[in-house]
């Protein structure tokens, strides 16, 4: 069983004063992975960028570099995607090794490191939005009793975050420190993903941040509204036996057919959909509209 989607992701900056020079990095094209195919993709940009380069970033995500060297008052970046999501195999979490032995497998011993482990090691440490603190170990203590299979522990952690935290779009901003999120017990998907990363990594395990979209259902009897959705974030944890397994702490689910993967990295800073540096511009607030439309296949 596969799912097909059309996705619109529109970002609109309207600047108070002209921007004379701008450089933007866009992570708006879905990366290829085993459970997902992108059948159509378009990036509409206005004004026309002075230069545009498409490449893969160091984590393997498609990255578009844009430079605007002529004065402009607004910037529009519209992504149009058609994506097919395939079912992922069922996993038996009891097959994953005890979390401590996973931690040991990732720890330096002086022996050569196999490629998947080396890859996993990229996602074991502090990153700009994920600082490691004792408080994260303490918070997740109950999820990781000694000897528990890694993935069982991670699922318990996801449930704990889902149960103890309130989704609150007003509570946080991109820069809200994680300790504050932990203290106030509220935030958005990005905060929950970062928090879960911090808990997993503070125990010496490897976990990465996944950015993407989620299919949402309109209220019963109402039509789907264009632009009513948002970009989404969840995490993926490395297991030496099962490989990388996704968890969505905001919804307490394992991403399957309703999650569309865009990019992954150490945290939001590696894969933010559109970020840049502008010269001039005055005050500005981006208007972002995301629409995820299921297509009949």
């Amino acid at each position, binding site marked *: 069983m596969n799912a097909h989607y059309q996705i619109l992701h529109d*970002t609109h*900056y309207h600047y108070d004063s002209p921007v*004379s*020079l701008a*450089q*933007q*990095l866009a992570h708006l094209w879905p990366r290829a992975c085993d459970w997902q195919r992108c059948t159509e993709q378009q990036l509409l940009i206005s004004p026309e960028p*002075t*230069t545009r380069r498409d490449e893969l*970033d*160091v*984590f393997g995500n498609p990255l578009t*570099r844009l*430079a605007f*060297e002529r004065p402009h008052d607004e910037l529009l970046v519209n992504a149009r995607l058609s994506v097919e999501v395939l079912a992922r195999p069922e996993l038996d979490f009891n097959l994953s090794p005890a979390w401590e032995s996973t931690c040991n497998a990732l*720890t*330096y*011993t*002086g*022996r*050569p*490191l*196999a*490629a998947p482990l*080396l890859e996993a*090691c*990229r996602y*074991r*440490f*502090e990153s*700009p939005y994920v600082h*490691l603190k*004792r408080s994260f*170990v303490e918070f997740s203590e109950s999820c990781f009793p000694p000897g528990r299979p890694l993935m069982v522990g991670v699922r318990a952690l996801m449930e704990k975050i889902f149960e103890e935290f309130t989704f609150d779009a007003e509570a946080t901003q*991109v820069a809200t420190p994680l300790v504050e999120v932990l203290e106030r017990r509220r935030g958005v998907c*990005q905060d929950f993903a970062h928090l879960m990363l911090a808990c997993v990594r*503070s125990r010496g395990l490897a976990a990465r941040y996944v950015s993407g979209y989620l299919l949402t259902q309109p209220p019963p009897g109402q039509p789907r509204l264009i632009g009513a959705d*948002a*970009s989404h974030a969840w995490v993926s944890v490395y297991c030496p036996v099962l490989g990388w397994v996704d968890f969505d702490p905001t919804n307490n689910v394992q991403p399957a057919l309703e999650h569309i993967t865009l990019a992954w990295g*150490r945290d939001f*800073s*590696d894969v*933010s*959909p*559109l*970020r*840049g*540096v*502008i*010269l*001039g*511009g005055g005050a*500005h607030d*981006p208007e*972002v509209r995301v629409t995820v439309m299921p297509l009949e296949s």
Partner: protein
Amino acid sequence: MPDLLDRYPLTTGTYHELLDDSGAVRTHWRRLFDQLQRSTPAQLLQRQSLLARQIQENGVTYNVYADPKGADRPWELDLLPHVIEPQEWKHLSAGIAQRARLLNAVLADLYGPQRLISEGLLPAELVFGHNNFLWPCQGIAPPDGSFLHLYAVDLARAPDGRWWVTADRTQAPSGAGYALENRMIVSRAFPDLYRDLKVRHLSGFFRTLQETLARQAPSDGESPLVVLLTPGRFNESYFEHLYLARQLGYPLVEGGDLTVRDATVYLKTLSGLRRVHAIMRRLDDDFCDPLELRTDSALGVPGLLEAVRQGRVLVANALGSGVLESPGLLGFLPKINQYLFGEELLLPSIATWWCGEPPVLAQALEKLPQLLIKPAFPSQSFSPVFGRDLSEAQRGQLAARMQARPYAYVAQELAQLSQAPVWQAEDGQIQPRAIGMRMYAVSGKDDYRVLPGGLTRVAAEADAEVVSMQRGGASKDTWVLSEQAPGGEQWKAQRTVGVHDLVRRDPYLPSRVVENLFWFGRYCERCDGSARLLRIMLARYVDGDDPQALQSAVALGESLMLLPEEGELPERLLAALLGDDWSFSLRSNLQRLQWAASQVRGKLSRENWQALVELQREAMELETEEADFGELLDFLNRLVMSLAALSGFALDDMTRDEGWRFLMIGRRLERLQFLSSSLAAFLRSDAVFDQAGLEWLLELGNSSITYRSRYLAVAQLIPVLDLLLLDEQNPHAVLFQLKLVARTLKRLNDDFAAPKETALPELVVRLSRFDLRCLENPLFGEASLRAALDGLADLLQEVADVSGQVSDRLALRHFAHVDDVSQRTVSV
């Protein structure tokens, strides 16, 4: 001189640079020691004061000198050099070059195939866990495979006489400039000895640096422009940045002076953008590009990394090289060197245990009281602690912390430092102090070249075991002795400059510097005007014999906003002079002057800078509490004189480039504005009919002497106005300045193809037409005289207003892009 060794303790268990185990002076020290022994205390004192004077004159500081609020810390330099004999040097330099090669190869691997990690030679924790491992730099191959252009290593000498590595500096090593400056100063204190001992020269090292950067810079056939990127004047070693920039002949720039267009770096200059081919950075690598690296950095250059990636600019050291600055690496390097080069490391490093391996952690915890515990990464909020300084409970806490994240901690044996003699001028003797050495290597054409010298750092206290400039230690010049006379090292004269290469102007003047020169000019004049008016008021207040003149001067001060309105006169005068909270006070303006000057320090001669520092020092020393008005008056007299000296420097000491033109325009506009608004206010007051008022007006316009020599009479309205208003020979006359400003601006606008200023020439015509005869025989008596004076005042006020507008337009046209702040955007 009594025997210098009488009171020089020979402690056992440490290495003495001066003495061998039997207490005899070591051979390579003998010449220097004998000279000291032969000298009279007076001679040494003289050498010492020569040294101190040069440090002061050169403005050598560790902190920032010019920041009025910052701590001014002059550089501490010991009279006696640290001496290294030729054999020892051979060993050291081979070891340092080997280490530089190794670290460069490690960087190439980490930003390339990462084989060292996959082979188990280097823990992933130490690399990926390090905040200076920059993922976006992965895969970038710099020219010639050079990541490490400049490398520094910290060394300590153990009791067995061997030098041990205590730390590697791979990011943007500091101190080489100080080493050069130390050499210039100390070699002059012992000129004969310096020659006789055949001390090796430092210049070749810096020449190699220049050659390497020039060779590796992607120049596309252009002659390469290399800049030195500084985080700015608040950095603790800003002096060194300035000094190196001058010595190497590189423009000193801040992030805001550079811009990236189409993956190419440009310097913003007054005459447009100029391509930069290489950047020697003194900015930490994660701050260098807010687009791709630390997004909260306000110091960097957005897009720099992409320019590097595209091979359009060379950055030295390579971005990301800071990852090797971790004490955790020390223990892994010997094996890596075996693996990569099949060699033993020539220099041992101090025993270090990275706690990331469980058995190592267990050992470290056991031996905690004997060890120094350090953070593995600079981002950690953890300062190194000596286990022995901790209580039992504290040790327990530390252990828990280490167990929670073992890979973030490193245990190290305490470095044992050798003792070298320092000269103590106060009691005229030498005393042993602990020293550590920082030595440098630069990448050359085929191999690393090691600086034959270095920065020797001296512990602040007799029993201190740590050397650190940040903790108030001193430094020493480092003399490497050689067997034959060092020759052929004439650094500066090396490149032959032919007629073809002649340069008549500085093409690389950043706009920021020009803007600050403009404001430097304005503040010089502003302080001068304000000081003169305050002097007039203060003198009359102190004398107390002419209340009417005092009253009219005070009225002028009020209308020019040079005197606060509230309070009793003495308090108001004091506030106008020294008020810290009153932003128009003379002291505030002096601070702004100093601020602007510090931004353009590279353009000012040493004497000019010295005059400024002196000025600032005096202003800061004045007591605000219990001020003595006589003393203040004396200060104002000296201040006016010093400002005149600055004006002299501007006229006679500076190259007349674009920057100078803006400085002079700044001065002239400010003076024009001050003169015309003062005269306008004066003409509207009753002081015009008061002889004492006219007297001080002459004083304000610095024209008393001219007046007296011309008229041999008391001050009268018509001749005074002629002199201060219309005399085209008097630089303090409005018409003189107005014409000068109009002329200068016309030339500038022509040169920059800017629209003409029409208002100024018009005012020149109107003011030239003013006929003083209308004041002589007023047709309709008193009333028409007042009307004529008011009309003149209006015209002068217009001149003042227009000069303000002209200044704004000028700033907008030439500096606007300097103010534009880049900001970061992010969307979800």
